[in-house]
């Protein structure tokens, strides 16, 4: 439903499209009918299972079919406990098939809640889950689209499961940020890593984020992170003064950049507001209203505090 450009098509193109659509609909209707008719708590039909894979590959949002597949997996798990001859391999093969299906679905639709959840659910039931492989999958998808929040959420789940150290994840976060400063998701991830522990780490992150905003002041991502770092009680007076001076210099190069003035507001606002600070803030908010008229309502409310 998103990002479908309205294109004009010829009658012939319409006919062709209609034909293809009817084919898909027939497959869906007949497939669903068969799958739901053969759905059972204690046994499953192999053809139905295969059909569900076909339908999900085309549309991974048919959540009922992911549920159906989970039921089948549970039946297989139960069977393997009851079998006299333990056949670990058969069950593992089954799990691997599920994972392969989700991977296929994710290739064409990397943002489907159903696919990601099914994968995680399978891994939780898998007798021999390969967490390293999952980690690699995460990295692959983050490289393809570093704003895919499903992938970041999945990573968080995996990290918990295999007990990756915080230090490793901090290093990963630094690496991602250095690859691309303009990645809100990377900055957000960093904020969840309990990173602002002591004066040292606060100072380090201040340098990291300052570097980012000065390299590309137009991108908004790092500015949000800067605001957060500056709100930490461990920021020293000298750090604030140094940053303020640097921002003044940056403003000469980028006079149209509202974020620089916003950052000055964050710095000046902290602590007791003396008359001089209030004067400066009023001046900053006036400039902001000129540079960033969309948010005039917000800036006017900022004025009211004085």
């Amino acid at each position: 439903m998103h990002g479908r450009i309205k294109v004009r098509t010829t009658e012939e193109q319409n006919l062709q499209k209609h034909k293809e659509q009817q084919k898909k609909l027939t497959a869906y209707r007949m497939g669903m009918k068969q799958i739901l008719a053969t759905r059972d708590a204690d046994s499953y039909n192999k053809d139905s299972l295969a059909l569900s894979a076909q339908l999900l590959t085309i549309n991974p949002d048919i959540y009922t079919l992911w549920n159906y597949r989970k039921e089948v997996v549970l039946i297989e798990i139960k069977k393997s406990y009851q079998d006299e001859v333990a056949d670990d391999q058969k069950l593992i093969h089954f799990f691997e098939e599920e994972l392969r299906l989700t991977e296929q679905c994710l290739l064409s639709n990397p943002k489907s809640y159903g696919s990601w959840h099914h994968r995680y659910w399978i891994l939780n039931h898998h007798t021999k889950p390969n967490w390293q492989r999952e980690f690699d999958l995460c990295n692959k998808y983050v490289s393809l689209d570093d704003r895919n929040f499903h992938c970041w959420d999945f990573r968080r789940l995996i990290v918990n499961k295999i007990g990756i150290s915080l230090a490793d994840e901090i290093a990963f976060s630094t690496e991602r940020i250095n690859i691309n400063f303009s990645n809100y998701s990377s900055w957000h991830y960093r904020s969840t890593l309990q990173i602002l522990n002591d004066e040292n780490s606060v100072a380090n992150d201040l340098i990291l984020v300052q570097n980012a905003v000065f390299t590309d002041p137009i991108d908004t991502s790092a500015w949000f992170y800067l605001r957060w770092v500056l709100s930490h009680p461990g920021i020293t007076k000298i750090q604030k003064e140094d940053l303020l001076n640097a921002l003044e210099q940056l403003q000469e190069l980028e006079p149209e950049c509202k974020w620089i003035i916003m950052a000055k507001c964050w710095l000046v606002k902290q602590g007791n507001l003396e008359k001089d600070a209030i004067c400066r803030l009023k001046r900053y908010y006036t400039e902001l209203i000129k540079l960033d008229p969309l948010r005039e309502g917000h800036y006017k409310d900022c004025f009211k505090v004085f």
Partner: protein
Amino acid sequence: MEKKDIFYPDTVPILLYNKHIEYLKHVSCSSYGNSYDFKSTESIRMSGIYWCLTALDITHSLKEFLQKPANNSDSISEEERIVNFLLQCYNPDGGFGAAVGHDSHMLYTLSAVQILVLLRKLDLVDKHKIARFISTLQQVDGSFAGDNKYSEIDSRFSFCAIACLYLLSLLDAFDLQKHPSSPFGIDTNKAVDFVLKCQNFDGGFGTVPGSESHAGQVYCCIGVLTITRALHKIDTDLLAWWLCERQLPSGRLGGLNGRPEKLPDVCYCWWVLSSLKMLGRLHWINKEALIFYIRACQDPETGGISDRPGDCCDPFHTLFGLAGLQLLGAASELQEINAVFCLPQYVVDAIEEDCCLDQLRAHRDKNAK
């Protein structure tokens, strides 16, 4: 770094009110059921019906539509057809699926209850059974799963649960904080605690604790906090600022995105606007620029609204575009919409009256004993 931007036209049409009614009637009527767009979206059908009917209602066209004969036959009306469908989606576990034969899910249970409330047909279902279904979805940490089997957790489901119970007038009755010895219920304190854990460094909210802030999740979380009267627990100004930063200048247009460095989309106009309304900061975005954006997303040929200018329209974006315009005060033709539930205000008012009536009834019964 070059910034992405949308295509935007030089001129922007006025609100094409009658065109949208035409579009909505077209996509809502039974004969549209033969189209590909309709059939291929079966797994979200219940929500689709809710979007269509709500949009019809705020354009004062619902009553007339419901009375029309379905499938051009005289036997049943569109309303009866919809109600029949809904009841067939009402599963033995007390929840609703997206369509007939589809499993119960929190998302479609909310949509179903929203439809029933809109149609004033809640008496057709066992409200307590639905509430019991919802209560089985709450986890130990206060979060809600999407279904009672596979535990997908998402703050959207917290909103669905709380909103649903409220619309059923059972939020109080099923609140374990108020009735600790009740066999069924939800722990509203824990529900709120979970939602608060979803708050991030930027003041926004994500899917689960640790997830990136996203305007859709913000709407859901703020919805929970509004209904449970827990908004005072968050930094309102910080969140409202993150929300107003969603507005992007594109010429005269000022659409809203869902999170930083993303393109604007009409549905975010709703999630962001309604959140700002709940936070009392609607004036923090530029109304005129947003109104231009939504109006630029209208389809002058078919009616309906799309996510971006020039894209295909659909009922989802049509509802949220219209609802957004109403919240902005740019469409006096439209019925007032309630920001928390995305239902006409008069419908939500009637629920509050029902709540009061129930309380009065209980009080009277108590005194009569």
